[in-house]
């Protein structure tokens, strides 16, 4: 950031700069930046490089020591393992379904919260609650709701005669994965809704009035005005949520611990198990880098889309 700023300053004509120019500010700026450099180096750059270094060795213990160099062996091992690809596939499914549901529900909810009605302030504050819950609490709560013998969901569904008897929700792989999706969507939809709400409030009223004068109906207005103008916001939600969902770990840890039969083991959880439970730190580090590459890939695509999608009123 500061680099970019300094670059911009230099491009300004000399006469516009304060006396003495940017040159003398350099040292002071550096001193002021030093604390953040220390922090960034200590908690971002060093771990990043250290992880990269570790990923090239067959590290199988937490202690420092000499371990055999394996080059890209850990990465190749990952690509060869069926477990790895299964985890990637599950993560992709989780990411796709949670993001899609959160965006669609978020738009609907955002539209609702934008309508003027009595008690809107109350609804707005209630809706934000799930998002305010820590993920761990949310996971624990859903585990209780889904509990097969005394969970609220079974009680509700049997009392409404939707299902004839109590059933197990987290006991089979496919069902469990979908239940985790629901828990995540429940928690994260409000975030999407509030982004949408904020965007809706910036759309000028006269656009709607013009559309109304032209005889456009509600649906037509939505698809021709609201949705196109929401696109940049939707893209931002997509970026944020895809990246977060791809890294999903805590809700899995609390709700299912990757089970049953690894049915909810996402790539981040798989990495954790390999590194900390199996003490294969080299392999774990390589997996962590693979995740980073995937996320970088998403980030690049989205950045391009975003740049294209900028709107001006």
């Amino acid at each position: 950031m500061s680099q970019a700023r300094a670059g911009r300053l230099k491009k300004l004509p000399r006469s516009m700069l304060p006396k003495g120019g940017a040159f003398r500010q350099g040292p002071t700026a550096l001193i002021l930046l030093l604390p953040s450099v220390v922090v960034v180096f200590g908690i971002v750059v060093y771990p990043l490089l250290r992880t990269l270094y570790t990923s090239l060795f067959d590290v199988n213990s937490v202690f420092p020591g000499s371990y055999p160099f394996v080059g890209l062996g850990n990465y190749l091992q990952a690509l060869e393992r069926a477990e790895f690809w299964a985890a990637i596939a599950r993560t992709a499914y989780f990411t796709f379904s949670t993001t899609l549901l959160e965006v669609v529900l978020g738009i609907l909810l955002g539209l609702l919260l934008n309508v003027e009605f009595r008690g809107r302030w109350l609804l707005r504050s209630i809706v934000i609650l799930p998002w305010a819950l820590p993920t761990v609490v949310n996971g624990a709560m859903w585990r209780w709701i889904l509990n097969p013998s005394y969970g609220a969901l079974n009680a509700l569904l049997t009392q409404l005669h939707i299902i004839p008897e109590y059933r197990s929700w987290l006991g089979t792989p496919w069902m469990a994965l979908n239940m985790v999706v629901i828990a995540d969507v429940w928690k994260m939809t409000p975030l999407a809704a509030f982004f949408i709400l904020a965007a809706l409030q910036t759309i000028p009223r006269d656009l709607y009035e013009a559309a109304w004068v032209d005889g456009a109906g509600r649906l037509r207005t939505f698809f021709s005005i609201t949705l196109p103008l929401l696109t940049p916001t939707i893209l931002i939600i997509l970026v944020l949520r895809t990246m977060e969902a791809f890294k999903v770990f805590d809700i899995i840890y609390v709700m299912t611990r990757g089970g049953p039969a690894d049915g909810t083991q996402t790539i981040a959880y798989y990495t954790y198990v390999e590194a900390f439970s199996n003490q294969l730190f080299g392999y774990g580090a390589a997996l962590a880098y693979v995740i980073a590459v995937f996320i970088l890939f998403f980030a690049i695509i989205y950045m391009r889309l975003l740049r294209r999608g900028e709107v001006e009123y």
Partner: protein
Amino acid sequence: MSAGESSGERRRLSRREFLELGAAGTGLLLLSGCGGGQGGGSGTLNALFMKQAAYSDTDVKNMTEQFQKQNPDIKVNLTFVAYEALHDKIVAAAPAGTYDTVLVDVIWPAEFASKKMIVDITDRFPESERSKIFAGGLKTTEYDGGYYGVPWILDTKYFFYNKEMLGEAGVSSPPDTWDGVVEAAKALKSQGVVEYPLVWSWAQAEALICDYATLLGAYGGQFFDGSGKPAFNTGGGLQALEFMRMTLDEKLSNPASTESLEEDVRRIVSQGEAAMALNWTYMFALANDPNESQVAGQIDIAHTPKGPAGAPGVNGSMGMAISNGSQNQDAAWKYIEFMTSQKIQNQYAKLSLPIWKSSYDQKEVVQALPQVVPVAKEQLNDMILRPVVPQYNEVSHTLQVEIQQALTGDKSPKQALDDAAKAVASETQGA
């Protein structure tokens, strides 16, 4: 700092210096983490325990207070984590030497000892003391001829049954074979006493392997053959899984079993929604406690049912070990000696039975759990160990996943175990 003196060249230099400094600093930090010290037998100890119902947080706190009263120059800080998080916590804390004593499960000493995470205490733990402890308990902390801790919790999974429910179904005496269990379950189900007579802790967790080991032992299977090759996919190992799958197929076992841990089993039994289950000792007291259970007084405990090859209980003991990074190993040993002492163990026998053989004939222990002690005396001499390999976690995880695939119907038991055997062979071969 030198950065203040400006000039592009200087600045770049100082940045490199800074990098070096940072790297050196981190290296030092890492170095200081390894290698422990004896300490002077006093000071502050950090102890890592497990959150559980037997020896609850309060129990451990009370024991520790007693210890501190006797040793005013030692202060002990306690940390409790769930069993499922314990292993990873020990691993993550090892390089920093955060904890002086750690609670280790019977399946970990091979891994921790071979990676030098816990200290060999054979010298501090003489034969004269060891001979007073149950052999099954001692195995908990033994690896490669040395001892890496002192057993603290001596436990196995017993067979629990609801005698009133069995009576209602016309089963006069509690089943003592697995075939008998199936028969009783069928009677309970057909007479509508309970929808699912059996419940198990078959979630993807160590609890699943504990139940599997019990059944594998009963059917005469082995985890590994004499040459160290996986052998659980044939004979008793296979029959055990087929038995498990059958009870689910016949709807004798609660389908929620595949997402349940021991605590879920206890709650389901305590709600009267199951008539028979395997669980640790602690369930006896809690399932018969009216505050915790709707079927208080109806739950009885027995030796695990017999299969064709016997009726072993899974060795589920845990021990206290000194971590390698501890700077205060003498004080840590004092603490372990105190916590595992017969006096303390007898005092808290109600939820967790002592490791000491002679305790089982002492009045105060027998009176604490009159129904359990006679059963325990026999079962504790008849236990099966899960495989002792440094890669245990990987092996266990593979087994959990494959067994669950068989239980949830994705694979046949034979297929699942063959796949597991193949994976386990490659996991253990690098040792």
